[in-house]
Structure formats: structure tokens, C-alpha cells
């Protein structure tokens, strides 16, 4: 090691700036309490302060910021969904993402790679055509490419006919990107804290104070935590896999199940794969990170647990399919494996907006697809909390839709596509 570098390292003249200010005590009362310090909660706090000047806000996080699914996801960002409601919503998020590094003055390593959803069957080609048309109608770059053309664009894949699912084509989405997930959480958190929001880590919400009228819950007025009770004007829960547990504390049920989603990375390799490649039939997706690791994942676990354990079954299934797609990685070793608890809705669309309890809002049902929605969720949640009105873009995702039989069928674009 060079002497100058050592001197630089030991010098007190270059202190690493703290991302978040030192912890303070809980105040007795906040105008808005955000439960959950993942990307969604922190982004909501950031836009409340930055767009609406509301800073008497607390984010309560039971662990450390970004330690939930925000720090566990495979960071695919895209807007080529299937329903017009979904496409419009996710496109707003992609647009916000592009300026985020400037807003934060922090490198998010936002990297546009092109996103390819492979089709291996005639019915998949049909869905891709459908998605491409919906996308183009909404002004999104989205194109069906057939095998020969695809082979020129992504030559790294196995185009053999002698496999279980030969590749027939792909839905190509040029703006598809990946980003550094931790930086998204820290950027929002630091930006919110700088503007006066309190971020309380190691602070678990254990219950709510809710007024009753004729025996049924009416309005939230306070939040119980492991550090005491605080008064709250409004509350929003942004807790992903714990959504059902927290909504239960507020006294209502949700149409979602908590199911783990596992992922893993290989040892670092020289850069060879530029594209983000996804296959619904093979239940895999893969991209190469800026560190050279292959970031790989698949479908959710076959059944629900409130755990983040990894399983051999998952890895075997994933690798069998990865070997079909990229046969030459057989000798490559796995470096890390992990899982997150995802909150899966039956229609693969989120749940946002009002709840049966007054002044209590929800941001849930993010399943395996919510990282890309972090900026738009923050922006629209903040608008909703500030104005008391549910913004038009998120109205289709109301919890009420299950009571009105108005589901938003996003499965064709959300499952495995991440």
C-alpha cells in the first residue's frame, strides 16, 4: 500500500460524513408517523419534507433502515407492465429515479441495461405482444423481438432447440435498469433527516391507539412502541412482509400473504452480460452487477413463512434453469444467498391509500415488485398525507377494490419479472 494512501486514511481531515444524524428521544407527538424505515417509508418522509414542508414526522423502524426488502431485492427497475393503471404508475417512478442521484447528490449507480422478458411458448409471445401494445399506447419503449433479432441483441444466451424451453423471442424494454438499493434508502433517509424528520431505528411498533364508535374502530390517535407511546395525527404503514401483522394491530385484515423470495449472487466475473434477462417459464432472472456478480433470483417460495432463511431446494431449481440459459456458468461458485419476506396480493398489484381506520393509511402489497415503485410511492403517499386526498394515480390500488370486485390483474407482467 502506498504511503500517501495510508496517510490519507489515518488523517482526521477527511471524516466520513454520517448518513443519518445521531439518535434522539422520541417526541410525545408527531403530525405524521410512518411505520417502517424501508425505501417506501423513507421516501414518504422525504417528499413530505421536500415537497410539502411537513417535518414534524417520525419514521419508526424496528431494525435498521433499509434492512428489509429494500436492502434484499435484485433492483430491477422497469415500467413495461400489463395494465394501463400499472404502466402509468411505474413509469412515473422510472422518471423520478432518473433524477434521484442529482436530488440526493449521491451515486445510486442507476444503470440502464435493457430488460428482456423471454418467451418460450406461443402463449407467452401473445402476452408479450399484448404488453408491448399496452406499453406503446402509454408511451413506453417496449417491443416484441423475435429469436433471430434477439440473438443479435443478447448473444450470451443459449438459443439451442435441444432444451426444455427453447427461446422464441422476448419483450424488449430499453429503459430497464438496475440501481444500488442501499443508496436509495440512505439517500431518502439522509434527505429527510436533513430537513428535520426524525428517523428512529430499533423502534418497533407494537400497537395503536384507536378511538371506537359503536364498538368498531374509528380513528387512530397514537402509536405504541417498545420505547413508549406517542401521539400521532396521521399514520401510514409501510412494512412489506409484516403488513398483515401490523394491520392486525390496527384491527383489519388484508388480502395478502407473506411469502419469502430468495436470491443469490455468484462470485465476481469479468463484465460479459449487459442485459437484464428474465424468463417466466424458467422462473429465473439474472443481471450482472457493477461488481461483476451475477445477481440471480426466481419465484417466491412454495409456501409462506415469517423467516428469511434460504433453502437448497430453491437453489437447485434456480441453477437447473440458469444452466439451461447460460450453460457456461457451470463452474462458477455462489458467493451469497439471502431472502426477504414479500407481501403477495392475489392480483399482483399493490394496496395503497385509505383503510377502514380514519387517518390510518397503507402502502403494502409490494410483493416481489416494489423496489422500482419506491420513488412514486413516496411522492404520492406524501401528497395523500399532506392534502388528505388520494392522488388519482394510486386510486386503482385502493384496498376497497377487493370489496368492489375491481382487481387490477397484473400477474402477467409482475410475476417473476420483478
Amino acid at each position, binding site marked *: 500500500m502506498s504511503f500517501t494512501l495510508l496517510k490519507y486514511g489515518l488523517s482526521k481531515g477527511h471524516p466520513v460524513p454520517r448518513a443519518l444524524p445521531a439518535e434522539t428521544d422520541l417526541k410525545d407527538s408527531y403530525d405524521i408517523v410512518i411505520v417502517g424505515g424501508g425505501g417506501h417509508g423513507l421516501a414518504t418522509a422525504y417528499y413530505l419534507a421536500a415537497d410539502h414542508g411537513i417535518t414534524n414526522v417520525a419514521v419508526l423502524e424496528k431494525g435498521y433502515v433499509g434492512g428489509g426488502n429494500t436492502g434484499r431485492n435484485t433492483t430491477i427497475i422497469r415500467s413495461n407492465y400489463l395494465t394501463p393503471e400499472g404502466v402509468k404508475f411505474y413509469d412515473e417512478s422510472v422518471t423520478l429515479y432518473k433524477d434521484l442521484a442529482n436530488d440526493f447528490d449521491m451515486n445510486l449507480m442507476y444503470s440502464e441495461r435493457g430488460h428482456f422478458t423471454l418467451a418460450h411458448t406461443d402463449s407467452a409471445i401473445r402476452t408479450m405482444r399484448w404488453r408491448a401494445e399496452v406499453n406503446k399506447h402509454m408511451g413506453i419503449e417496449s417491443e416484441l423481438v423475435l429469436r433471430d433479432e434477439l440473438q443479435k441483441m443478447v448473444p450470451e444466451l443459449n438459443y439451442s432447440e435441444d432444451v426444455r424451453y427453447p427461446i422464441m423471442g422476448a419483450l424488449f424494454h430499453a429503459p430497464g435498469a438496475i440501481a444500488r438499493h442501499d443508496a436509495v434508502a440512505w439517500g431518502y433517509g439522509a434527505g429527510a433527516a436533513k430537513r428535520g424528520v426524525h428517523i428512529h431505528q430499533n423502534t418497533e411498533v407494537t400497537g395503536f391507539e384507536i378511538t371506537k364508535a359503536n364498538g368498531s374502530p374509528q380513528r387512530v390517535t397514537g402509536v405504541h412502541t417498545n420505547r413508549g407511546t406517542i401521539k400521532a395525527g396521521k399514520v401510514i404503514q409501510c412494512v412489506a412482509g409484516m403488513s*398483515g401483522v401490523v394491520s392486525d394491530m390496527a384491527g383489519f385484515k388484508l388480502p395478502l400473504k407473506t411469502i419469502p423470495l430468495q436470491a443469490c449472487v455468484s462470485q465476481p466475473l469479468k463484465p460479459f452480460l449487459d442485459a437484464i434477462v428474465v424468463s417466466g417459464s424458467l422462473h429465473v432472472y439474472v443481471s450482472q452487477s457493477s461488481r461483476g456478480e451475477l445477481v440471480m433470483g426466481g419465484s417466491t417460495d412454495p409456501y409462506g413463512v415469517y423467516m428469511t432463511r434460504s433453502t437448497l431446494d430453491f437453489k437447485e431449481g434456480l441453477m437447473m434453469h440458469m444452466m439451461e440459459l447460460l450453460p457456461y456458468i457451470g463452474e462458477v461458485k455462489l458467493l451469497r444467498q439471502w431472502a426477504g419476506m414479500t407481501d403477495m396480493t392475489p392480483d399482483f398489484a399493490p394496496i395503497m391509500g385509505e383503510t377502514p381506520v380514519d387517518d390510518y393509511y397503507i402502502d403494502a402489497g409490494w410483493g416481489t415488485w416494489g423496489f422500482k415503485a419506491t420513488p412514486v410511492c413516496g411522492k404520492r403517499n406524501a401528497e395523500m398525507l399532506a392534502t388528505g386526498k388520494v392522488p388519482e394515480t394510486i386510486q386503482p390500488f385502493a384496498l376497497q377494490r377487493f370489496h368492489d370486485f375491481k382487481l387490477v390483474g397484473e400477474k402477467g407482467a409482475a410475476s417473476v419479472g420483478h
Partner: protein
Amino acid sequence: MKIMPCPLNGPRNISEFAYGGEVLDLPAPDCDNETWIDFVYLENNTAGVVREWWYHTPTAYWFIAERDTRTDEILKTYPANEVFKDRVDFAASEAPAAPAAKE
């Protein structure tokens, strides 16, 4: 490997089984919409011990398992007829009694 003790086939790798959802009481066919919505869409999503339907795929066999969703520990498995003792006649036209799960 995670092992599921099947009441019919003994201990088998859990990959041979399909999860079939929580054991719930079926609402009466003529119940109101809210009751159906609750049954079809809303989930208890319990962090704790739950009673669930499981299916052994190779032998086409449904049974019930009690499992702790916080630890993934399978506490107990038994044939469905230990809970559902009466035959349910789905074709009944006049309001049939809801087939209650008997403990």
C-alpha cells in the same frame, strides 16, 4: 431438505407436496358478499401456528398440517377426516348448514 410427515406416505421431501391454504370454515352458499370477500380474498396471514391444507402430489392425497409460520416447524399432520367428519352436499338447493370444522 425439509421433511413433511405425510399421514399416508410417511416422511417425504417437502418438494413432493403442494400447499393448499389455511383450513377455513366454508361460508354458507347464500351468505352475503362481504362474507364471501372475506373468505376468498382476505387472509389471516398469521405469524404463529396455523392449520393448513397440504397435498401429496404423487399420491393425490389431501391432509391437514399444523405449522408454526415463525419457525417453519411442522407440529402435527393428520388425515382431513379427523376434522371433516360429515359429507358435504354442495348440490343442496335449500339453505344447507355451513359445514363447520369440528375440533
